[in-house]
């Protein structure tokens, strides 16, 4: 092979002449580009050009690539002169001065070309340019008006780009070499190279509303330097300093000249390094991004997209506020999305990425995101600055994402943390005994779990970030999906799954049918044994093969209310704070809709949070309407209305059905006897109650890691009995001093030895606070608390009041055997007339009744053994217990 000939071919001319040839091509292509380009609607005209005008696209590519070649070879030309020490050949100072000045115009031409794209990066670049001009003392404003123009009009930039800057460049070239014409051979080679480049690679165009603002490749270094300094004028000083160094070069002594050149070279190399970092590792809001995040963001340095001369394209003309994307050329007929995600307005790219300006099917579909909304891509999709950044940020700290409460309690019972209030994140689980326990039994229920395929999630497919709740395939959407997967779709009229805020209960059920099982309870189902499936008993089998038996449903469910009617956005998606437990995260309380006295409310127009304002706007809510604010932290309940008579109406979010909400009944606030009772203490019909469970690690059992979705050898196995649907146990919230509902939480024995030798066994009897979600209008009876050993915490058994003369005494015979670890019946929370030993519960603020409290409860219970709870005596006792006690007859006795 004749290397010399090849070398000679590539060195067909100097960098200066290659630059000069490119300048001519750039000027001619620029003149042609003026036909389809419209600077008053720059981005729209370029978008339309890319989608429907291959000749225009090609001309634009040629203009872009010739400008890049001109810029690069101009710099190389300067380098050539410095390297060969030929800068001193230019004897005329005027010519040298002109050449130095024209370097400024070279930069201006390049950046103004970038600005004229009219995308968000271009628009911001004009603002930066204007700001840099204005930072120059005295003449800054004048320079800005002359070269950067105004915010709303690109006219100045366009004129200076096509006329002033171009003329200056040609004058400089002519002044430099006394001609503007390169050799024909050079010109043809450059043209051929540029034609190939322009055919294959598209000139970049960003989105008009992109939040990734990155300048052109030669400018991102300056952008990074600007990021590092609070005083942009330093950048002007730096640029002027470099130009001054070039300007004085010819008059310096050779030794000093060499030093200045070295300085310039080092500056150039440093700038290139900064440029590299900025190009690849800066993302949205100029924050650091990984290469993976860069890929997800859809950024491309060089876009391979051959001009589709042969593709049949139809003219595109975007209406105001309508997206112009190549995706819509095929998918414009996509239906099924709600108004807030109307495909004509939001387009496809915002969620699914890909290439919105390529008309080639396979290229348009490259780097697409199949399931937008997974937390791995939420920052680039649902959570971009234009869409829902607040919510996706909040969700990262939500308990449904972190599982912090579950992890903290599990680690506590395993002895791996001293506090139940430490915060954790499920993604940070390691492989300790507790971590492995969580991985085997609990770590599947979190929003960060990845949804990897389209279609409605199966019961055991939990997670998917935003899509967990907000994505819903109806039958038509599912049929559409199948047509597209089987490639039998025409692609034109298909149904997209709905993305909205109408979240049905089944979205919640998959996760909340476990642990406290509130989703099941709310609809009236209690988990039972498989043998319960028999004729005459209303049972059903869940998709994970658990059997549930119908007990009775929550009154709110019977009225038609859904989970989301009470639990709004902040309850469910977090409020931006890291909470330890669910009761801190949940804002709604019974008294918000059933208040005693004045309703806490606000008019819609005065609501402070934008999310509520947006919902009001979406639902066209009258701004003068008042809505309920939660007492806990003033969260608006947007589906409520408060009228002038202080009456609350609740509107079902799913059905639109109206419900009149009643204020607290007078019976609830009567007397002093029950003023410490929480609403739930009386109105909770039942909660699922287990007796306890045993946990052991089986090394040979094939297990499943719910966090990674992989099978493992060895797994923690839980042996649990059936759960019984009974009225909740009562206890004390030591923070509010209220009597609240509780249920067995972590009543369990753990065989630590089975996981790691020498660790022994442990037993915990921790009850958990519960919000049963089995609310009934009718309250539980007096006896169901005062004469019920389960309610008081003794467990199931015979609680008998025996009298002897006028002395009565309570005795208790448990039904369950005593646990050898603590001597209490298996189902007890505290011993009969015994003080419990801490830790009592899965919260440090929850405890069972003390002996003194047990005695007071049983004292009333003693009365109820003779007096009907609706009797005058008991009603008086409710109003004034001390008085009733003082007035009791001699027959009434009590001793314990």
């Amino acid at each position, binding site marked *: 092979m004749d290397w010399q000939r090849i070398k000679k071919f590539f060195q067909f001319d100097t960098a200066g002449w290659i630059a000069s040839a490119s300048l001519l091509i750039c000027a001619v292509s620029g003149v042609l580009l003026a036909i389809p380009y419209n600077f008053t609607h720059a981005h729209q005209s370029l978008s339309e050009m890319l989608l429907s005008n291959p000749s225009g696209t090609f001309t634009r590519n040629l203009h872009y690539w010739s400008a890049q070649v001109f810029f690069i070879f101009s710099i190389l030309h300067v380098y050539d002169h410095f390297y060969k020490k030929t800068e001193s050949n230019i004897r005329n100072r005027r010519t040298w001065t002109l050449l130095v000045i024209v370097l400024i115009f070279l930069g201006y031409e390049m950046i103004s070309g970038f600005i004229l794209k009219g995308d*968000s990066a271009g*628009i*911001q670049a004009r*603002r*930066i340019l*204007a*700001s*840099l001009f*204005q930072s120059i003392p005295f003449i800054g*404003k*004048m320079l800005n*008006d*002359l070269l950067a123009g*105004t*915010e709303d009009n690109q006219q100045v930039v366009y004129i200076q780009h096509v006329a002033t800057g171009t003329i200056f460049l040609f004058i400089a070239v002519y002044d430099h070499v006394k001609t503007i014409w390169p050799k024909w051979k050079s010109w043809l080679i450059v043209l051929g190279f540029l034609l190939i480049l322009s055919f294959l690679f598209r000139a970049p165009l960003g989105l008009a509303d992109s*939040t*990734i*603002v990155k300048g052109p490749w030669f400018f991102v270094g300056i*952008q990074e330097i*600007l*990021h*590092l*300094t*609070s005083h*942009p004028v330093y950048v002007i000083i730096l640029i002027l300093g470099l130009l001054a160094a070039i300007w004085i070069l010819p008059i310096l002594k050779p030794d000093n000249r060499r030093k200045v050149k070295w300085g310039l070279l080092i500056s150039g190399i440093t700038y290139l390094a900064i440029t590299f970092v900025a190009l690849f590792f800066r993302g*949205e*809001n*100029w*924050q650091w991004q990984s290469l993976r995040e860069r890929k997800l963001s859809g950024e491309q340095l060089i876009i391979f997209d051959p001009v589709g001369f042969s593709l049949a394209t139809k003219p595109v003309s975007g209406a105001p506020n309508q997206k112009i994307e190549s995706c819509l050329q095929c998918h414009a007929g996509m239906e099924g999305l709600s108004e807030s995600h109307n495909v004509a307005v939001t387009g496809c790219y915002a969620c699914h990425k890909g290439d919105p300006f390529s008309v080639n099917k396979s290229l348009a579909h490259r780097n697409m995101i199949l399931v937008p909304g997974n937390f791995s891509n939420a920052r680039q999709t649902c959570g971009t*600055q*234009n869409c829902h*950044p*607040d919510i996706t*940020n909040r969700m990262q700290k939500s308990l449904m994402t972190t599982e912090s409460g579950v992890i903290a309690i599990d680690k506590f019972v395993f002895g791996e943390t001293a506090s139940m209030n430490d915060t954790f994140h499920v993604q940070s689980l390691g492989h300790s005994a507790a971590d492995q326990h969580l991985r085997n039994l609990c770590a599947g229920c979190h929003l960060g779990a990845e949804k990897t395929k389209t279609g409605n999630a199966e019961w055991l497919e939990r997670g998917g970030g935003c899509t967990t709740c907000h994505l819903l395939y109806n039958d038509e959407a599912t049929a559409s999906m199948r047509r597209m997967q089987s490639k039998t779709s025409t692609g034109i009229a298909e149904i997209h799954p709905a993305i909205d805020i109408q979240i049905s209960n089944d979205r919640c059920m998959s996760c909340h049918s476990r642990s406290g099982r509130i989703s099941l309870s709310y609809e009236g189902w209690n988990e039972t044994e498989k043998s319960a499936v028999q004729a005459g008993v209303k049972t059903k089998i869940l998709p994970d093969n658990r059997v549930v038996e119908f007990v009775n449903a929550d009154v709110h469910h019977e009225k038609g209310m859904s989970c989301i009617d009470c639990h709004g956005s902040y309850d469910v998606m977090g409020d931006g704070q890291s909470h330890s437990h669910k009761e801190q995260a949940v804002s709604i309380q019974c008294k918000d809709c059933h208040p005693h006295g004045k309703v806490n409310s606000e008019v819609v*127009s*005065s*609501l*402070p*949070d*934008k*999310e509520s*304002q947006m919902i009001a706007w979406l639902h066209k809510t009258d*701004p003068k309407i008042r809505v309920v604010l939660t007492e806990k932290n003033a969260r608006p309940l947007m589906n409520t209305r408060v009228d002038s008579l202080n009456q609350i109406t609740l509107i079902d979010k799913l059905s639109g059905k109206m419900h009149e909400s009643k204020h607290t009944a007078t019976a609830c606030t009567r007397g002093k006897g029950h003023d410490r009772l929480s609403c739930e203490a009386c109105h909770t019909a039942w909660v699922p109650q287990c007796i306890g469970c045993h946990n052991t690690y089986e090394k040979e059992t094939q297990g499943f890691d719910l966090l990674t979705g992989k099978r493992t050898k060895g797994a923690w196995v839980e042996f649990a009995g059936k759960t019984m649907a009974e009225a909740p146990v009562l206890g004390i919230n030591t923070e509010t001093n209220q009597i609240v509902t509780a249920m067995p939480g972590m009543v369990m024995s753990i065989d630590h030895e089975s996981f790691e030798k020498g660790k022994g066994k442990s037993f915990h009897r921790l009850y958990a606070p519960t919000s049963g979600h089995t609310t009934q209008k009718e309250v539980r009876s007096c006896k169901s608390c005062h004469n019920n050993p389960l309610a008081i915490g003794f467990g199931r058994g015979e609680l008998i009041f025996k009298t002897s003369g006028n002395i009565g005494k309570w005795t208790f015979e448990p039904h369950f055997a005593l646990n050898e670890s603590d001597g209490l019946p298996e189902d007890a929370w505290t011993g009969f007339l015994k003080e419990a030993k801490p830790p009592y519960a899965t919260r440090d603020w929850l405890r069972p009744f003390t002996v003194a409290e047990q005695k007071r409860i049983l004292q009333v219970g003693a009365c109820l053994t003779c007096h009907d709870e609706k009797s005058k005596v008991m009603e008086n006792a409710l109003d004034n217990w001390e008085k009733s006690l003082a007035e009791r007859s001699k027959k009434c006795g009590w001793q314990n």
Partner: protein
Amino acid sequence: MSRKTFFRILSGLVVGMLVWIWHSLSRFQEEKENNVKYWHSKNIPMGMSFYGKYYIIRNKESVRAFSTTCTHAGCRIGKGTETVLQCSCHGSQFEAATGKPLRGPAIKPLTELDCRFDEKTNQWVIKFSKTT
């Protein structure tokens, strides 16, 4: 006076005149930009309302308006969260309620705009002349 000197003086005068015209045009442009007014109905929503070139922040005590031009390098800042504004160019953040920078490179607060209630029209008027 030699002919060369005469032409030099003449050239200087011509350049001077051009600069004066340039300066006048620029001053006219500045006055035009500073006289832009925006009207808003009485019921401005609570919290931050974003209107592109400026935003209004309303709480129980006051209604204030700030320019959305980043005080660092002139970019248009956007809504980061409900209480924080974000510059997408260089990463600065500002507190919406006060306009104070929370994160650099910006070190100056956002420019507060003249915002007052016009009793005659029963509307809020935002004027782009600087008050700070």
